[in-house]
């Protein structure tokens, strides 16, 4: 067991760190305030290959691995949680399912522009009546000649209005089991922005990750080519769950970054801030709190990296499962980030409650990591389900 990164991973981290500090950090506060999607920085990330890190070169990606991608999300999130989730949703939730389930034609047509940074991706599963309970879904797709026709809506969609290519889940069949109980069968579809019948609803006003474009998607007789179905008909739920396993590692990395970023900001602050004639870093309470914060985020880091490395093994050998690792990483990292950012605000005192200091935003950003791509409760179900099988 070797816990050190090799040189190329170290250099990749250095790259992400430099980019985050030079390009992302200066904008972080402003985009939180204005809630404007950081288009310019996303375009830079597209140019420098950040949007296809774990995707093979033959599909327009960088040909690196999941661990490298995870470090990218982590480093970006250290300074801006919004930027972290833009990359995560694009890579884990849109590129990854096309890579895993797409036909060669679909990969050429959709994955190449996504991974090479020409197009931005999104993923839409959640509906107003269906979050954790997928069976509540109403959005449906019906066959009509050589098309699928989508009707319904999706909500809380990350990269919502900004994306070009969407993975949409819709009910295609209703099956009855031996006892006559009906259940819905889903299929996954690739939908392009601009398709007639595909429009955007309300923009969410969020507590955190405020510049992330979170929108409702509306489908009214939206007709897409038959070949845009992703994976087999009726297998959409499995595709969604498998995709979210990967997505959770991305969100875990986002949480990890936010927590670590709040520690960086706090260290800087406590060395500067003076009370009773000395920097507050000199008080043992400050020091001990920081130690706890660090130990907790380091524990999160190893869980997140373990999950990333397990997914890397899966990329080589599809028999490997990373579902539990991903759930543990997300559960722990998200809750650690929430706790650590809360402490960071506390150590900043009154300043920490103002928007002038980054920890205020980080605490708000941390909260979402306990909720999206499977709440902490869902992660506990996944983990305990496997334990008690």
């Amino acid at each position, binding site marked *: 067991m070797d816990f050190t990164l090799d*040189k190329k991973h170290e250099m990749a981290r250095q790259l992400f760190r430099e*980019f985050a500090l030079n390009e992302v950090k200066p904008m972080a506060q402003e985009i939180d305030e204005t809630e404007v999607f950081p288009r310019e920085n996303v375009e830079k990330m597209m140019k420098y*290959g950040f949007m296809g*890190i774990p995707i093979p*070169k033959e599909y327009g990606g*960088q040909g*690196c691995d999941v661990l490298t991608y995870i470090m990218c999300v982590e480093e970006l999130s250290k300074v801006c949680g919004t930027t972290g989730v833009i990359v995560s949703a694009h890579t884990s939730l849109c590129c990854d399912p096309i890579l895993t389930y797409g036909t060669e034609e679909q990969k050429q047509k959709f994955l190449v522009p996504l991974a090479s940074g020409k197009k931005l991706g999104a993923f839409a599963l959640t509906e107003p009546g269906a979050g954790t309970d997928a069976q509540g879904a109403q959005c449906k797709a019906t066959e009509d000649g050589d098309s699928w026709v989508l009707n319904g809506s999706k909500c809380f969609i990350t990269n919502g209005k900004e994306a070009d290519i969407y993975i949409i889940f819709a009910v295609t069949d209703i099956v009855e089991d031996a006892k006559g109980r009906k259940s819905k069968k889903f299929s996954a579809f690739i939908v392009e922005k601009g398709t007639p019948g595909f429009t955007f609803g309300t923009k969410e006003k969020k507590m955190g990750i405020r510049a992330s474009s979170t929108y409702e998607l509306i489908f009214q007789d939206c007709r897409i080519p038959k070949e845009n179905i992703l994976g087999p008909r009726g297998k959409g739920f499995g595709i969604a769950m498998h995709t979210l396993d990967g997505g959770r590692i991305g969100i875990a990395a986002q949480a990890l970054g936010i927590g670590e970023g709040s520690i960086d900001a706090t260290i800087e602050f406590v060395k500067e801030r003076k009370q009773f004639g000395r920097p507050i870093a000199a008080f043992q309470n400050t020091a001990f709190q920081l130690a706890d914060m660090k130990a907790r985020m380091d524990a999160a880091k190893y869980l997140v990296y373990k999950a990333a490395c397990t997914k890397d093994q899966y990329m080589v050998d599809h028999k490997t499962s990373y579902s539990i690792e991903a759930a543990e990483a997300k559960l722990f990292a998200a809750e650690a980030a929430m706790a650590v950012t809360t402490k960071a605000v506390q150590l900043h005192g009154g300043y920490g409650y103002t928007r002038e200091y980054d920890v205020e935003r980080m605490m708000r950003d941390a909260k979402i990591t306990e909720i999206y791509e499977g709440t902490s409760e869902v992660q506990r179900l996944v983990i305990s389900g496997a334990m008690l099988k």
Partner: protein
Amino acid sequence: MNIVVCIKQVPDTKGGVKFNPDGTLDRASMLAIMNPDDKAGLEAALRIKEQNGAKVTVVTMGLPKADDMLREALAMGADEAVLVTDRRLGGADTWATSSTVAAAVKKLDYDLIITGRQAIDGDTAQVGPQIAEHLALPVISYAEDIKVEGNSVIVKRQYEDRYHEVKAQMPCLITALSELNEPRYMTPGGIFDAYDKEVTVWGRDDLTDLDDANIGLAGSPTKIAKASDKVRKGAGEKVTLDPKESVEYIVNKLKEKHVI
């Protein structure tokens, strides 16, 4: 066309500075980065490569750990990298450094050589023009814009209150200002590829066109008599004076510190 870019790994001066007992820099103990002016020079070369087509080779003289910086250059888009490293080359001043780098460059094909104007550790701005001198090439220092036209380069050469637009025949040497451009980032895939590439490593004995009298500490005409860290400033002074005295006080301090 062949472009050789001379780059240097320098300590990030934000991290503090240490010396060996003999007064030379203890580079091993400091955080290392690619010198900013050199990075601008590399970026300029990569842009020429994109526009005109060129092979870009980066050359450095330094410790074995300069390998990291060469990989960075490869990850940005350089085609080949050469590391000149040998204990016998250590402690070199600008004369010995430029003699050594010139001997390495002589082994390569070049139409254009680009160096940074100056390194943030030594701040001398001497090595570039001196390499040109050893190679008997035209030199244009302080370049803030570079264009290739046929067999020549057209460069904006910066001075304090003006610039000259200067044309030189290739082969020639240009020293780049960091104002020249905004260097690109590496790409993640570029980093992975860079670690799969070979970096050419040359020792003293590979540089045949180089006299022992011109290398290392012994071959350096300038000698360090003493070196010391600037004393970190403590708490400053605070005075309460009438306006006229205040003005005199400030003017005197500015004079003391050679600001005026």
